[in-house]
């Protein structure tokens, strides 16, 4: 089985096209992943014979940081791309500008595969690693579709604060919390774009729901399931799905696990039905916990932070001195004393002290995973950080 690395396909996307057209199953993985090349090769050897043809394999680390390989069926993903094209009204889009690694299922399916199936132009950038190249691509955009993650919005604002990119027609968000609080900035940057909140996970390969930004007034609303997709919740509140577009299997440290049509698959998120056909997320399964008997929801706390802070923000969890579960807040860039007070006062106004962070810290640059999400596991290990406030 052929293993493609993201730098190879970024340099020459036609490599990916050749693998897609070939019969043999191939893997597309980032250079810096949670698994070594030997680990990936070893795990690919776990694939049953029937999955060694017409499949593709992506690597995901998820928020837990434990790598796993997701095995997709090419014809299913092409069918999903066609469904998304209709639902997202993508026909007017002539090109797509890639700002995320193509190894990320979101960029791979929504952008590379869409461009391949519908014969649209694929513009590969290096995202904010090369902001000038990204700016040039956005300035030259002609009827472009853009796929972003929420954490890129402060970077857009910082790098292109006085600019607008009228050639972008569609802006999609996925891979984390929808940046509802920054919609005004997004609309200023992309005045002609329709904005969508996409939700899914790697096992869904990757899309489950879709919502035009204007259809809800809160970040947590993920919209309606795509036709054919069913959502449900487990006894513990975890959002589950069944999808005709799902991955066919997962390979993790335990080996290969087939995903069958009748299986309800966990998303790792907590969620609930709203009642109007839409669904809302209430947190990651590992982002809601008890502290001094109170239910702490980190996504809810993050909403409060982002109403009062235009930079990046993330929580990481740790025990406090009394052995109670707690959480610390990390900001980027470094805040002023007034900004720190504003955020803390907002916590005080909206929540009891059990919800307040143990510390408010900042770093000059947020550690990110290859897919653009915050590397939460790395936050706790950062030594070069500023401490602005702590709970005694």
């Amino acid at each position, binding site marked *: 089985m052929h293993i493609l690395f993201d730098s190879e396909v970024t340099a020459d996307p036609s490599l990916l096209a050749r693998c897609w057209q070939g019969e043999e199953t191939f893997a597309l993985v980032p250079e810096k992943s949670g698994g070594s090349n030997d680990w990936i090769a070893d795990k690919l050897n776990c694939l049953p014979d029937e999955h060694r043809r017409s499949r593709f394999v992506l690597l995901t680390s998820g928020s837990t940081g434990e790598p796993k390989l997701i095995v997709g069926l090419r014809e299913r993903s092409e069918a999903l791309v066609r469904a998304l094209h209709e639902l997202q009204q993508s026909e007017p889009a002539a090109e797509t500008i890639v700002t995320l690694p193509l190894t990320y299922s979101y960029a791979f399916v929504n952008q590379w595969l869409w461009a391949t199936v519908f014969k649209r132009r694929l513009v590969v950038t290096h995202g904010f690693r090369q902001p000038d190249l990204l700016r040039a691509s956005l300035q030259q955009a002609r009827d472009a579709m853009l796929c972003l993650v929420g954490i890129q919005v402060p970077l857009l604002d910082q790098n292109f604060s006085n600019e607008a990119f009228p050639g972008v027609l569609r802006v999609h968000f996925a891979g984390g919390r929808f940046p509802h609080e920054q919609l005004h900035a997004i609309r200023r940057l992309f005045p002609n774009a329709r904005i969508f909140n996409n939700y899914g996970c790697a096992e869904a390969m990757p899309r489950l729901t879709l919502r035009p930004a204007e259809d809800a007034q809160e970040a947590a609303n993920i919209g309606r399931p795509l036709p054919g997709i069913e959502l449900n919740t487990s006894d513990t509140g975890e959002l589950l799905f069944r999808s005709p577009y799902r991955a066919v299997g997962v390979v993790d440290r335990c080996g290969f696990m087939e995903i069958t049509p009748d299986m309800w698959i966990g998303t790792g998120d907590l969620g609930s039905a709203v009642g109007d056909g839409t669904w809302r997320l209430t947190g990651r399964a590992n982002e809601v916990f008890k502290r001094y008997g109170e239910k702490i929801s980190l996504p809810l706390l993050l909403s409060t932070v982002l109403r009062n802070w235009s930079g990046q923000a993330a929580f990481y969890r740790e025990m406090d001195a009394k052995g109670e579960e707690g959480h610390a807040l990390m900001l980027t860039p470094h805040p002023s004393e007034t900004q720190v007070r504003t955020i803390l006062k907002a916590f*005080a106004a909206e929540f009891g002290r*059990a919800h307040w962070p143990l510390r408010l810290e900042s770093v000059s640059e947020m550690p990110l995973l290859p897919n653009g999400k915050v590397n939460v596991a790395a936050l706790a290990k950062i030594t070069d950080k500023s401490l602005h406030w702590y709970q005694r």
Partner: protein
Amino acid sequence: MHNREKLKSLLVDVFLLEPAEFRFDMTREEVPTWDSLGVVSMAVGIHQTFGYHFTPEEALAIQGVPDIMKLLETKGISFDA
């Protein structure tokens, strides 16, 4: 820094008060953030700042800033202007 200023700085930080709204005659009822966990944070802060560890009974009996000052003064910590 004088002990009065140290105490003000501590309580402003623990209870997230604006420096301008702080008064040395403030009562617990006037400070919404002076909840039960706030009492614990305040007691830890007093220990860190003044070296005296409130007993749980002392901490819970405190009804305002004057009580803190009175209690600490009995331990030899002066708040004379």
